[in-house]
């Protein structure tokens, strides 16, 4: 919302300057976006009278002018086509800086003619882009006066952001009232005294609402004015409207804008001669159309309020008027509407039609005072009569003022116990009264009556806010938040902490954490199991971000592709975040997902580089699960994995047969092809939420450590087995030979081909035996070894390689 300092001072008696006003506005909760002093740097330019404008003797396009700026005639050369004798122009003199062309003027001789200054265009003054000629000031502009005063630029323009609760501050007067309460001056009285009507309006107002819908427009005040002459409004009005970014249109229209911005009282003025019959506020008939003043046609529905005449809508209530009954230069008789429209209905009408107007903005924010319909129309009548003449009718009143009266119980002690600051009771009373509240002592508390323009004040907390914001938040003493205990409890819950740990564990493994959008394209989601209909956005920001991601993989794979395009082919990326299987809270899962692409390590002198493979992904998955507290030693590995993984190079980590804690594997080359990303890419998805909650044992003690004093013994075995036999079977069988004695089994070699029969592989293991109560004898060791061979051969159908 914009206004000028002089506009404010029309309502506020104050000596304060722009800076002081701005600082106070911010302090009381009306945030100042900007204060533009349009005259800054232009104060030295003066009004000059052009006495003569002769053709330049040596240049076709120039004129040799003689101008008077109050100190006798001087010669000025000018190139503007509109420079002519008799006009008033803006003169810049030698030594002055002209901002639009970034030049400090010097006395000069231009092609032999002396030039003692420059007559300025708008863009040369830095005011706009109008370069069509020099500025033509009004004929009555006083010679030698500051041009900025004549042009109405001396008035600083404020742009404030009014919070949605303060509709009353969408009028300059509301802002003035707040400033007055804060002690920055005194609110001036407003003359809204009645204008005597000299005849009865030929147009009546007939509210036609069905039972129960009357609150759409409960109250309507109108007035007929006959015999007006619509022309331009006075210069100060045009300057004021221009300063706040509005285009002056005609006196009748400018009156409504002046009241909207000045008093937050939107009005509408109909050309009475174009109104057919009477004015009928009613709900629209579905499909009714109206060509609005903005030149667009709107189709109303049954929930919208219209101001119709006998035949058709002439305004969308609280939003915009119709072109047909708008005022023009020929308008002679007018009908003024000052009405009250329901905030919700007005908001919804505007939103459905995608139409924002100054009127809607105020009605939907409760910014229109339900007790100021008559006051507003009286002020408007007076202005119209002053500018356009005419005779006013008696008021036409339909409906009744909605009941806005509200008394609130207020305990001044709440200013301290809620607001945290002591404000003396007389000051509390003064603040409330200056803001327009009624205050009555009622025993231990006050009874505060809320003014008609403050529909936002609904309870005691609101009153505390009023008092402390005017008193000043800077006066609230700072109090430390008392501790809950001498030492705080853990901030992270166990299931949250494990995400933090998993994240740091993956970073420690060289992976780089990404945070990607929660959306993907539906077609991409399809490659990763698809997004259910419930997670498809109704209003996506773009078609490639239209569903909630069913997996984190697609975003990471796409990121690897983008990084590869930039020359970084090795992308170890991970993300810990949500994925969505539906729209219910339980459909959201927090997943640690990672990928690696390209090579496992950069080229180096010490070791050959190798492409990433499924075992990198498996190791990452195990690391993430281990960090998150999963019992990784007890996990079962199976070869099942979703379709987006390579069917022969992927698997799952399960806790028991049912609970999948992670998928891992090479990403299916077909998927990479569809996503246009070069392989190899391997990845994993670890479902952290599925890890069983850590048991709340007694204390953090570990099991007792028993160290054996006896040397461990190692033995190596190589088995020839079918290529399809999983290594896990061999390990499991070997361990079963003597679970107490065998503490570790390592696979140290695996190969196929060579001398081996086709379809066979050799798998070599190293077994560690740890005796606990005595040193093992050779026969004992041999017996365990024989048992290992026998178990493995039996379980796998293989044989010991000899």
């Amino acid at each position, binding site marked *: 919302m914009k206004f000028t300092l002089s506009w404010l001072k029309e309502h506020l008696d104050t000596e304060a300057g722009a800076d002081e006003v701005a600082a106070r506005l911010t*302090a009381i909760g009306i*945030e100042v976006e900007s204060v533009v002093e349009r005259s800054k740097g232009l104060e030295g330019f003066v009004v000059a009278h052009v006495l003569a404008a002769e053709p330049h003797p040596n240049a076709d396009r120039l004129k040799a002018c003689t101008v008077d700026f109050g100190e006798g005639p001087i010669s000025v050369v000018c190139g503007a086509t509109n420079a002519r004798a008799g006009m008033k122009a803006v003169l810049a003199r030698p030594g002055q800086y002209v901002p639009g062309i970034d030049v400090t003027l010097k006395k000069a001789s231009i092609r032999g003619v002396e030039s003692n200054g420059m007559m300025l265009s708008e863009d040369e003054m830095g005011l706009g882009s109008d370069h069509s000629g020099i500025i033509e000031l009004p004929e009555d502009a006083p010679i030698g006066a500051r041009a900025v005063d004549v042009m109405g630029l001396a008035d600083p323009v404020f742009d404030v952001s009014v919070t949605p609760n*303060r509709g009353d501050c969408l009028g300059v007067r509301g802002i003035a009232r707040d400033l007055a309460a804060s002690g920055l001056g005194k609110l001036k009285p407003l003359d809204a005294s009645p204008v005597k009507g000299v005849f009865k309006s030929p147009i009546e107002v007939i509210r036609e609402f069905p039972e129960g819908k009357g609150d759409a427009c409960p109250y309507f005040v109108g007035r007929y004015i006959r015999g007006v002459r619509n022309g331009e409004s006075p210069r100060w009005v045009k300057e004021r409207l221009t300063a706040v970014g509005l285009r002056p249109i005609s006196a009748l229209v400018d009156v409504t804008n002046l009241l909207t911005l000045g008093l937050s009282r939107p009005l509408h003025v109909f050309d009475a001669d174009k109104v057919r019959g009477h004015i009928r506020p009613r709900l629209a008939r579905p499909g009714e159309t109206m060509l609005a003043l903005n030149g667009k046609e709107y189709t109303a529905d049954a929930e919208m309020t219209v101001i119709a005449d006998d035949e058709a809508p002439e305004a969308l209530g609280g939003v915009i008027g119709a072109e047909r009954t708008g005022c023009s230069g020929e308008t002679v008789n007018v009908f003024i509407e000052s009405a009250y429209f329901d*905030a*919700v209905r007005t908001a919804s009408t505007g939103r459905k039609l995608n139409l924002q107007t100054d009127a809607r903005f105020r009605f939907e*924010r409760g910014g229109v005072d339900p007790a100021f319909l008559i006051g507003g129309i009286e002020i408007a009548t007076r202005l119209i009569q002053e500018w356009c003449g005419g005779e006013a009718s008696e008021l036409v009143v339909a409906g009744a003022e909605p009941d806005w009266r509200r008394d609130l119980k207020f305990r001044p002690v709440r200013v301290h*116990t809620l*607001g*945290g*600051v002591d404000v003396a009771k007389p000051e509390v009373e003064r603040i409330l009264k200056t803001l327009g509240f009624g205050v009555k002592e009622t025993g231990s508390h006050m009874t505060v009556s809320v003014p008609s323009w403050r529909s936002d004040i609904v*309870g005691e*907390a*609101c009153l505390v*806010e009023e008092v*402390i*914001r005017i008193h000043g*938040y*800077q006066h*609230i*003493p*700072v*109090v430390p*938040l008392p501790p*809950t205990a001498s030492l*705080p*409890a853990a*901030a*992270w*819950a166990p299931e949250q902490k494990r995400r*933090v740990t998993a994240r*740091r*564990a993956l*970073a*420690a493994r060289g992976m*780089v*954490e990404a*945070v990607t*959008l*929660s959306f993907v394209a539906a077609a991409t989601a399809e490659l990763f199991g698809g997004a259910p209909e*419930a997670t*498809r*956005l*109704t209003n996506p920001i773009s078609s490639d971000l239209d569903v*909630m991601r069913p997996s984190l993989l697609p*975003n990471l794979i796409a*990121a690897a592709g*983008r*990084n590869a395009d*930039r020359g*970084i082919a090795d992308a170890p990326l991970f993300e*810990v975040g*949500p994925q*969505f299987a539906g729209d*219910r*809270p339980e*459909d*959201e899962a927090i997943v640690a997902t990672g990928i690696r692409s390209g090579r496992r*390590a950069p080229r*180096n*002198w010490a070791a050959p580089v190798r492409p990433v493979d499924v075992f990198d992904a498996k190791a990452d998955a195990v690391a993430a699960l281990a960090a998150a507290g999963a019992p990784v030693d007890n996990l079962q590995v199976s070869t099942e994995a979703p379709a987006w993984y390579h069917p022969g190079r992927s698997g799952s980590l399960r806790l028991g047969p049912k609970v999948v804690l992670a998928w891992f594997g090479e990403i299916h080359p077909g998927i990479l092809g569809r996503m246009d990303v070069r392989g190899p890419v391997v990845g994993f998805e670890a479902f952290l939420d599925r890890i069983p909650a850590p048991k709340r044992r007694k204390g953090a003690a570990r099991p007792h450590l028993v160290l054996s004093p006896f040397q461990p013994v190692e033995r190596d075995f190589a088995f020839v087995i079918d290529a399809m036999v999983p290594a896990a079977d061999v390990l499991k069988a070997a361990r079963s030979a003597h679970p107490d004695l065998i503490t570790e089994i390592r696979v140290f070699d695996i190969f196929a081909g060579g001398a081996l029969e086709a379809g066979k592989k050799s798998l070599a293991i190293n077994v560690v035996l740890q005796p606990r109560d005595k040193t093992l004898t050779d026969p004992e060791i041999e017996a365990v070894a024989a048992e290992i061979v026998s178990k493995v051969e039996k379980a796998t159908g293989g044989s010991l390689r000899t």
Partner: protein
Amino acid sequence: MEDIDVLRSELIATVNGSADLKTLEEARITALGKKGRITQLMKGLGAMEPDARKAVGARLNAVKDEIAAAIEARKNDLAGAAIDAKLMQERVDVTLPVRPGEDGRIHPISQTIDEVVAIFGEMGFQVAEGPDIEDDWHNFTALNIPPEHPARQEHDTFYLPGVGADGRRMVLRTHTSPVQIRTMLKQKPPIRIICPGRTYRCDSDATHSPMFHQVEGLVIDETTHMGHLKGCLIEFCRAYFGVDDLPVRFRPSYFPFTEPSAEVDIGCTREGGQFRIGHGDDWLEILGSGMVNPAVLENCGIDSSRYQGFAFGMGLERIAMLKYGIPDLRTFFESDLRWLRHYGFAALDVPSLVGGLNP
């Protein structure tokens, strides 16, 4: 006696002059062997007078020990030289770079969340969470934002097709405030929580991303007032930005779910074209806050005549950008490895107050 001195010098010279272990052994035999020169002289002692024998014997023993020690010393020298020569053969180029290590990173948003949790955790806050897909009751209505309220329209909400309980519309949460509601519905006061998480607005340009992160805070008990709100948030701002005397300003504002409401600015300066947080001539808005609106408490079944407290919310990208000098919001979500490695944090750089949050 002169003979012994001459002999001693001669033998020690031979020992010290041995170029390798073999010559040294020969020198030892020459001196101390069965037929060695010292041994021979010892044998001659028996023929001497007792007094002379005693004097010469002592002398010979001393020389014998001296030579034995010289042989031992020379032996060590020769062995050391042999090892030195072998080690020189094993020399490598130590200017070669180290083998590739693991160079992972934590995203600035995760780091910022960890920092914020570390600070508020110290003040007794616990982390609470809620779903990203909310219903409009939790996201708006319960927070005192009725359907046609202008504040609801200003939220640029993403909608989903589903309908929840009581015909509630499903939305992507536009702020982390619904977590307040979920917490108050299931937990009785006193409450002290913070809720970091993803939030969504249907808006995308240079300064907006359709997804971003917020952290919400909520304190509910019987006595907390605006003075505590100021104390808590000033302490946070100073700890987070690492500026002990950081100016913090509270301005009246409006949020439907708080009453009174305050916007919080921190001091900054743009002197010399260089942006810096701290004392200066300018202010920067960083968070919204206020005393929880009684209507919100009642919506969650909390007796507003007994309980009160404050809530606040701030954008995590914004405070991360300010602290770490990250210029562009959208780059947070682009997964550009160059950006992640530059602005990211080491795995072991875990924020804590005992370790200090700022360099």
